């Protein structure tokens, strides 16, 4: 008997979970995410110091509908990952950008940016890449547009945490992502700008970092411990396939520039199941749920979660039925 010393599970489905692997995955996720979160906090600090609220207001379109299209358009042009987006979106809201517009940008930037589209084309280069690229872009656009027009009807105080909801008013410590952090400036400093910038970066970074740590722990647990083969039997089903794709995206918590490579290799999934995975993942998953909670009320995040996944499911189910 070859390799008799190996202690391998008898069945892939019953593989179980390895806690050291969870630690490795958690460590990898936070090491990958923290630099982008810090970059987001630095940009947020620069916006705080150098971008007056009035200037941002002048840039914005007057109508809400135009604002939603502008937010999606900005997401198309400026690649921004999920982790880096959070401090910037919170800062923009504090600077007076309507929450619906800022939130639409937050949803559009990871899923619609050119890097995500390019990686989708590369990943599916042997599997009809233009179709996959077109479906991902088209369905993502439609889902984000529908969410955008839902967002403009919401009251900001229903969406946002109390500390985020201050608009262009002067920022107090209790109104930041890290409300318990007390920063007392040294007297007699002539470095007001640097002090303001440093304080903003520290508050934003440490405030969102807490949620990144929690989200990474949840993501590591499920991405490591969940056996993907469990979904294989339903991956080709016209109804359950898209649901399986959405479900897997929630558990694996992948970045939008990586997800296409992972799902392209997952042979048991049909095209609608893969598209559902690619559309739903960048909008929300278990890690993003916690990151969103750094700025938004729990009830809003739950509603966003439900609507994003329902819209994704309906579109992919429609495609599935048309090609049944």
């Amino acid at each position, binding site marked *: 008997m070859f390799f008799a010393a190996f202690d391998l599970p008898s069945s892939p489905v019953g593989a179980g979970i390895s806690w050291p692997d969870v630690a490795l995955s958690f460590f990898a996720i936070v090491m990958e995410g*923290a630099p982008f979160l810090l970059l987001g906090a630095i940009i947020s600090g620069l916006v705080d110091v150098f971008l007056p609220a009035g200037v941002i207001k002048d840039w914005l379109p007057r109508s809400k509908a135009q604002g939603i299209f502008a937010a999606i358009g900005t997401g198309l042009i400026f690649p921004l990952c999920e982790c880096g987006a959070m401090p910037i979106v919170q800062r923009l809201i504090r600077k007076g950008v309507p929450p619906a517009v800022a939130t639409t940008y937050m949803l559009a930037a990871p899923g619609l940016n050119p890097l995500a589209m390019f990686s989708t084309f590369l990943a599916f280069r042997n599997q009809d890449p233009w179709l996959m690229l077109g479906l991902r872009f088209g369905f993502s656009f439609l889902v984000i547009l529908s969410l955008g027009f839902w967002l403009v009807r919401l009251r900001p105080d229903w969406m946002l945490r109390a500390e985020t909801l201050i608009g262009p008013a002067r920022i107090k410590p209790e109104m930041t992502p890290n409300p318990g952090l007390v920063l007392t400036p040294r007297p007699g400093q002539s470095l007001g700008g640097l002090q303001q910038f440093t304080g903003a970066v520290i508050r934003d970074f440490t405030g969102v970092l807490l949620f990144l740590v929690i989200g990474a722990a949840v993501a590591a647990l499920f991405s490591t411990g969940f056996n993907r083969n469990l979904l294989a039997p339903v991956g080709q089903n016209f109804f359950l396939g898209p649901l399986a794709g959405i479900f897997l995206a929630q558990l694996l918590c992948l970045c939008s520039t990586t997800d296409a*490579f992972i799902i392209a290799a997952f042979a048991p999934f049909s095209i609608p199941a893969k598209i559902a995975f690619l559309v739903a993942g960048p909008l929300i998953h278990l890690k993003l749920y916690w990151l969103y909670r750094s700025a938004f009320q729990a009830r809003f995040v739950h509603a966003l979660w439900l609507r994003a996944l329902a819209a994704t499911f309906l579109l992919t189910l429609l495609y599935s039925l048309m090609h049944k």
Partner: protein
Amino acid sequence: MNLIARQISFLAPAAVMSAWATVMLHTIAGGHINRLLSPMFRNYVFAAAILLLVLSALHVLLYQPNPETDPAPTGRLRQFGRWLVILVPLVAASILSPSALSSTTLNNRLNSTNGVPAMPSMGPATDANVQAELSANPNQPVPVEVTDLIRLGKSSSQMTAFDGRKVQTVGFVIQQPGQPPKLLRWIMWCCAADAVPATVELSGNTSGNWKDDQWLEVTGTAQFPSTAGHVAPRINVDTIKPTSEPDEPYLSP
């Protein structure tokens, strides 16, 4: 007591950020970063570590403890808990992380290997590249990666050129009940959390009492048998021997 609490509250942000920077730098210096992130992300971690140290210094220089004349801020204990949640899991993970993903995780991800897009280590996938590799040193086994063999199996001309050629590669050997042994290598796109396994079958002299996570060097003949139109690359093994962990434990794009 109140003075100590004020000092702790003041120093906590700088201490936590410095601790994160220290863990990052230690991970880079010890080479453990290679087991966590693909090469393109590693420099970002280094830059972030330096910036966190700068921020820590700026915090101490630009700010001061809350004056004793001010009332003690509410929720101080809650804030202390936040710092612990930010710090403790990171330090624990840095200590507890193994050098490689285990066979348990492998089995959770294994069935996805058939469609793994191979990433060549030999440059663009052209016939000329393959021919250049083959003719470079005809008396020596061609150094390849597991993913090279998978990629070659997708091109009939390249497969024909490589079929029967001696090759040498490294990876883990896995054995599942009812299946031939396989040589495994993890592919990492961004970080270890998204790593997926790529495997080729082994045949011939595959005997040995290898450990689960032991790095092995396999030398043998490349073969590309086809079953129902599906090519499953295989190495007919001459020798398997233990080897050291490669500089890059994962294959990355």
